[in-house]
């Protein structure tokens, strides 16, 4: 028994040490940094103060940025559910070789650098971009319409970046479903709407729920896309932290913003999982 314990210890010890050294330590240092003071002449002042947090909570400028981050993330999540879940269902009903090709098309963008994809959206959303040209050609707009530096633009580009995660999550849930159940429902006289609502949706639900929290947390922490599409004019929490670190150089304030973002995301993930578990517990017990 002792040999087994020694072996287990030898297997996990190096990785544990690595994580304490390069994950826990840097995060703790950042947390401490967020309690430090700062001014333009002296730089970082090693005292313990809640000043940065007080500033963030008191100033409506920061409140607006955090609310915008939340609003964008919620929209991206809702749109991803509405678009990604049906797409996963459609993919499931396809047959090879189309199905394999289409899955490549859905997964492919996940592998392409987010910077290249965001660049594409910058081209599409700009004042002389394709969307603006199309709106003008259709007579829907008299002048150029730029969606750059708007929340709508950021939401569209983020849905593009994150919707594959939703498709994959729902796809994984649906692939556990037996297609015979659908046919059974059909042969028992259920219409397509009933089949979708009573057979497909309940099976897809775990995928939709897990996909939602993945998309939400990635949207809330997204950086490159809001930085390019939203720019300086439309800051979100992550671009705010970036600016505080690399432009204003107020590291303690930037660290406080980062800590709030981290706490917000971790709380959402745990809260959501608790909610989902409770909901499913009710379903199973009733």
């Amino acid at each position, binding site marked *: 028994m002792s040999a087994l314990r020694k072996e*287990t210890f030898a297997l996990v010890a190096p990785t*544990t040490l690595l994580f304490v050294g390069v994950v826990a330590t840097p995060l703790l240092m950042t947390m401490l940094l967020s309690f430090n003071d700062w001014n333009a002449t002296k730089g970082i002042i090693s005292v313990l103060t809640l000043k940065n947090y007080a500033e963030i909570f008191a100033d409506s400028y920061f409140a607006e940025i955090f609310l915008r981050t939340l609003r964008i993330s919620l929209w991206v999540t809702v749109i991803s559910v509405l678009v990604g879940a049906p797409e996963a269902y459609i993919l499931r009903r396809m047959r090879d070789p189309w199905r394999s090709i289409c899955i490549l098309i859905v997964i492919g963008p996940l592998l392409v650098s987010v910077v290249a994809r965001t660049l*594409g959206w910058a081209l599409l959303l700009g004042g002389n971009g394709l969307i603006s040209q199309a709106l003008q050609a259709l007579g829907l707009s008299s002048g150029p319409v730029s969606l750059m530096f708007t929340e709508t633009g950021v939401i569209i580009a983020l849905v593009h970046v994150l919707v594959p995660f939703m498709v994959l999550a729902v796809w994984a849930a649906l692939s556990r479903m037996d297609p015979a159940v659908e046919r059974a429902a059909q042969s028992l006289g259920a219409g397509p709407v009933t089949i979708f609502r009573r057979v497909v949706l309940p099976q897809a639900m775990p995928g939709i729920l897990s996909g939602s929290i993945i998309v939400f*947390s990635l949207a809330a922490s997204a950086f490159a896309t809001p930085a390019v599409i939203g720019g300086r004019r439309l800051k979100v929490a992550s671009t705010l932290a970036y600016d505080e670190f690399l432009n204003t150089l107020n590291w303690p304030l930037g660290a406080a913003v980062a800590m709030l973002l981290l706490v917000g995301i971790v709380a959402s993930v745990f809260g959501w999982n608790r909610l989902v578990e409770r909901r499913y517990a009710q379903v199973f017990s009733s």
Partner: protein
Amino acid sequence: MRNGPVSLLFHCLFVTFLLAPMVLVCLVAFTPENFLSFPTRGFSLKWFHKLAEYPDFLKAFRSSILIATVSSIIALVFAAPASIAIARYRFVGREALSAFFMSPLMIPHVVLGIAFLRFFQMIGLSGTTTGLIIGHVVVIFPFAMRMVLAAATGMDRRIEDAAASLGATRGTVYRRIILPTILPGLASGFALSFIQSFDEVTMTVFVASPTTVTLPVRMFNYIQDSIDPLICSVSALLILFTAVLMLVIDRLYGLERLFVGETAA
């Protein structure tokens, strides 16, 4: 069940939405004009030739490959033993350790970037390749571990017992039995880690320096200043590179298996 016309229309719109930005980037890369214009008249490789005047993109590409390769190997070296222990043994703190090792998945990359910026400044690794590799190892670790864990979980312990009863030492068991069984997990773990590292931009933006930079960060910094056909040609090459990589992985392993897992395969 078959898809009706409405479903197929929806599907076509979805695929268009997914592909449009990337197709557009590739088309703009071939413009003969000196500015961004679409639709363009004509076709030219002018901007690809112009890339030769910007050797820093090539340099950044090389460091991206180097960092992705080295950090994937290091991540696997640490992930493999940890995954074997977590998959096969029940020990105190197993759940907690597993959550700890997967935690980089939940921490926003901005927060990791900030944490590493501060950490590297304190220990004197600011702007070094070593620093970038450490950061990448952390970011990709959960992906490496997930793959090895999946391979190690399915292992039949009786083979090991048989080997031991035939007189094999623990070393031999590891080398001849455990390692070969987790080998597919190591291969897929490498593929997934490499891609994650190669695409990482958010964390790297914080710890990169003008001399040590990865391709996505170099591109991001360029886009912050100006959006022109040159950056489109860089992106087009990157998209091409990724497409080739994707086809190779799909042939060798199956993308679906890599991203959705065994259940859907």
